[in-house]
């Protein structure tokens, strides 16, 4: 069994929205005979529990606030001081900004790969909504079908670009939220970053 952890602090309404993305992913992997998922949720998320969890997984997926140098804000769950615990593992961060400095830092300190966002990560509500579906679709091939991590990046890119196109030029352009939606999708895809081994696959 391949071990994967999902970390979702749910400390406020923004993180609760991101958590609904994680719930979709958990449902997708729930029936897998190959993937064992650990769900670190709400008050279970502490610096100590993250330290214990990250190094024991093939991959850890975060659904939390971020800063350029950390996942977690204001409490840093992962930063330069403990990112070395992720040595040899894959990190995916659905967090604002963490792909800017923490991603390269993680790989420099031994992480196999880091997929995240180097700018603001937006979420269009209600939940899990349009964006959560993109995230779940992108991760499914990696977690369940042997696709490389770069396939997640490619599918996130394509998924957000499709939403942008639909509401910018397509049938969705008359929607009351059309401009907000395509602007939000645009900044999401342009901020995608993947450092390290792009060909990492779930064994």
């Amino acid at each position, binding site marked *: 069994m391949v071990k994967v952890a999902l970390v979702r602090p749910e*400390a*406020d*309404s*923004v993180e609760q*929205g991101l958590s609904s993305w994680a719930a979709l992913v958990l449902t997708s992997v729930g029936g897998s005979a190959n993937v064992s998922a650990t769900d670190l949720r709400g008050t279970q998320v502490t610096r100590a529990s993250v330290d214990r969890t990250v190094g024991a997984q093939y991959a850890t997926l975060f659904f939390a*606030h*971020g*800063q350029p140098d950390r996942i977690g*804000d204001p409490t840093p769950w992962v930063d330069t001081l403990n990112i070395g615990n992720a040595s040899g593992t894959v990190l995916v961060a659905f967090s*604002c*900004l963490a792909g800017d400095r923490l991603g390269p830092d993680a790989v420099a300190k031994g992480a196999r790969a880091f997929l995240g966002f180097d*700018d*603001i*990560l*937006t*979420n*269009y*509500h*209600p939940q899990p909504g349009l964006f959560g579906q993109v995230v779940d679709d992108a991760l499914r091939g990696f977690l369940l079908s042997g696709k490389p991590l770069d396939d997640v990046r490619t599918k996130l890119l394509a998924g957000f670009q499709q939403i*942008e196109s639909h509401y*910018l030029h397509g049938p*969705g352009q*008359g*929607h*009351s*939220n*059309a*401009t*907000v939606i*395509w*602007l*939000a999708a*645009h*900044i999401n895809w*342009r901020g995608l970053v993947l450092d390290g081994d792009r060909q990492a696959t779930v064994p």
Partner: protein
Amino acid sequence: MAIPITPDLSTADIDRLVLALRSWAESHPAPDEPLLSFAGAEVLTPRQLADEVEGRTTNGLAFIRMAHFGTEVMPFEEIVAHFGESKAAV
């Protein structure tokens, strides 16, 4: 969260964006329903989004940054105009 510095949108540009957002929010079919989240710790409604941009709060600066990068695919004046053109939810 510290919002990265956004390349230039003038004060006048942002004021026009605020006016357009206010107009859009007031004619929105669900002006007080959760709509969008990013930097801050709250999910914003259309009315709150207009307030936050006007106040240049963390959330407001994040949206201004979104609007700035939107100019990669649409001129700023058109983005502003589109808020005025959005109609009922589909």
